[in-house]
């Protein structure tokens, strides 16, 4: 049973990430690949708070979104002039730089050795040690994030974001401050991602820079694309499927030597065929 709880926790964490990614990329149409960087910043905030500063991890749940928001704000402001592919490249640059800094700033991040022994969350007098207890926290945070995302997409703010995705110029003519909207969406998305980072760090109790690479961001992309871009439901479904599929492939039993590679191969092929035959994704309403 613990395995199912474990997978459920991982799904919740990625669900948060996918929702955040969907807000930025799906609803607003900002091509960002920096998702893993904000996820990583959240995890590192948790790690540093818990080990170097000796603080309770629940404080990190509040602090990480704030810290990330500040970083995202600065980043979003300086990247504001980029469009589409250029924005993508700039965020890719940020992700790579984040990763290198995490590897090299040894005194703060532990360098490539990473940070071990991050404490488990302790709240209301109980420490959430096992997957069965941790799942409640993970699902709780996921719910909050889902509610936030749901309200954003229903609000006038969300409709403005959608309009930016469809036709930025037109919106400008109507007198909307497009760059402010984009910045807000980027910052909110980043803060939400950092929550997932805190959960992940305290669940695994160990983090190192290899966990927050470009592959992680691409996985997030694949999730929201598979589920259908610009739907919150789709983002959650994508996270669920892309965690479950590789895990269930563990049970197929390919010849042992190639099972891992086979998984990657199937994963690649899924992406191709999806693009060829159903680019809308499962729940798609918006065609890329």
């Amino acid at each position, binding site marked *: 049973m613990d395995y199912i709880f474990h997978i459920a926790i991982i799904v919740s964490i990625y669900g948060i990430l996918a929702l955040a990614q969907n807000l930025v990329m799906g609803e607003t149409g900002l*091509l960002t690949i920096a998702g893993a960087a904000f996820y990583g910043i959240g995890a590192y905030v948790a790690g540093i708070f818990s080990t170097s500063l000796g603080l309770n991890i629940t404080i990190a749940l509040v602090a990480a979104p704030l810290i990330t928001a500040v970083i995202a704000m600065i980043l979003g402001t*300086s990247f504001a*002039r*980029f469009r*589409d*592919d*250029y924005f993508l*490249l*700039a965020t*890719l*640059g*940020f992700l*790579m*730089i984040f*990763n*290198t*800094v995490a*590897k*090299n700033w040894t005194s703060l991040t532990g360098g490539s050795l990473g940070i071990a022994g991050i404490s488990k969350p302790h709240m209301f007098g109980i420490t959430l040690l096992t997957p069965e207890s941790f799942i409640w926290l993970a699902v709780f945070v996921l719910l909050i994030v889902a509610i936030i995302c749901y309200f954003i997409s229903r609000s006038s703010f969300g409709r403005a974001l959608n309009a930016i995705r469809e036709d930025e110029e037109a919106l400008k003519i109507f007198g909307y401050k497009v760059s402010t909207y984009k910045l807000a969406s980027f910052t909110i998305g980043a803060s939400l991602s950092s929550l997932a980072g805190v959960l992940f760090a305290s669940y695994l109790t160990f983090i190192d820079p290899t966990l927050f690479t*470009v592959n992680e961001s*691409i996985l997030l*992309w*694949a999730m929201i*694309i598979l589920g259908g871009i610009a739907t919150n439901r789709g983002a959650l479904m994508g996270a669920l499927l892309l965690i479950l599929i590789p895990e269930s492939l563990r049970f197929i039993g390919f010849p042992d030597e*190639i099972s891992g*590679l*086979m998984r*990657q*191969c199937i*994963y*690649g*092929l*899924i*992406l*191709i065929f999806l*693009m*060829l035959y159903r*680019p809308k994704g499962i729940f798609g309403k918006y065609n*890329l």
Partner: protein
Amino acid sequence: MFYSLLVVGFGFILRSSKFFNVAYGGAFLVGGYAMFLLYRMYLVPFFLAIVISLALSGLYFVLSNKFIFEPLFKRKASNFILLISSFGLLIATSAIIGIIFGNQATIVARHLSDVSTVNILGGALSYVQLATFIVTPVLIIALAIIYYKTRFGRAMRAIENDREMSELVGISTSNITMWVYMISGILAGIGGIGEGFEVGINPYAGLFYILPIIVVAVLGGMKSFWGGILGAFVLVIAQKLTVLIFGGSWEQAVPFVVLIIVLLVRPEGILKR
């Protein structure tokens, strides 16, 4: 050095199909591994092996265009879809190559100590490096001539400028595109073979090389033939300087720092068209 060749090939694809086709890294792998299979495993003579490997890497790219990118193009799919599908192709290619050849680095030369060195002007160069130094400029000049002087090159440039317009004036776009893919695939294959000889390639090399190549292409200005080559030199020099000043572990971040600076300061790249 052979970065510039790879960038030229990538630039062709980028300009004619207007998206970041990361499957280019797949062609790189196919070239290198075909060479390994033929030259090292089956002991095929050197030049024959090169020709076959390059043909294969070109073919790989042409087929990928035929079956994946062209149908998507016909549907007027967005760049984003094309990017994702080419990425899927790269992942699948890496994995398949890993299944066939194993995951460890594979060295194409039959024995490393056979790859001897020559001393030129006080610096030691291996034959591969020497060959790169000779072949790269020759190829680049040849490509420049094709690109700027021939009918085919004109057609290529026409497609780059305006695909629909060129179709209207009677250029067979799908035919030309096929050849563009062939040429890029071959260039990627040369890169793969060179890498295989020099230090060995592994199934992950495709992804590892494609990122700096994209950066270089942007850096040099996406629209320019010579810009990419210039970008390659700027990047390599910046990387080496970083290694000297800050240490090797920062090397990976350099392309991206340079990228962000260039994007902020001069988004059209170093060379404008």
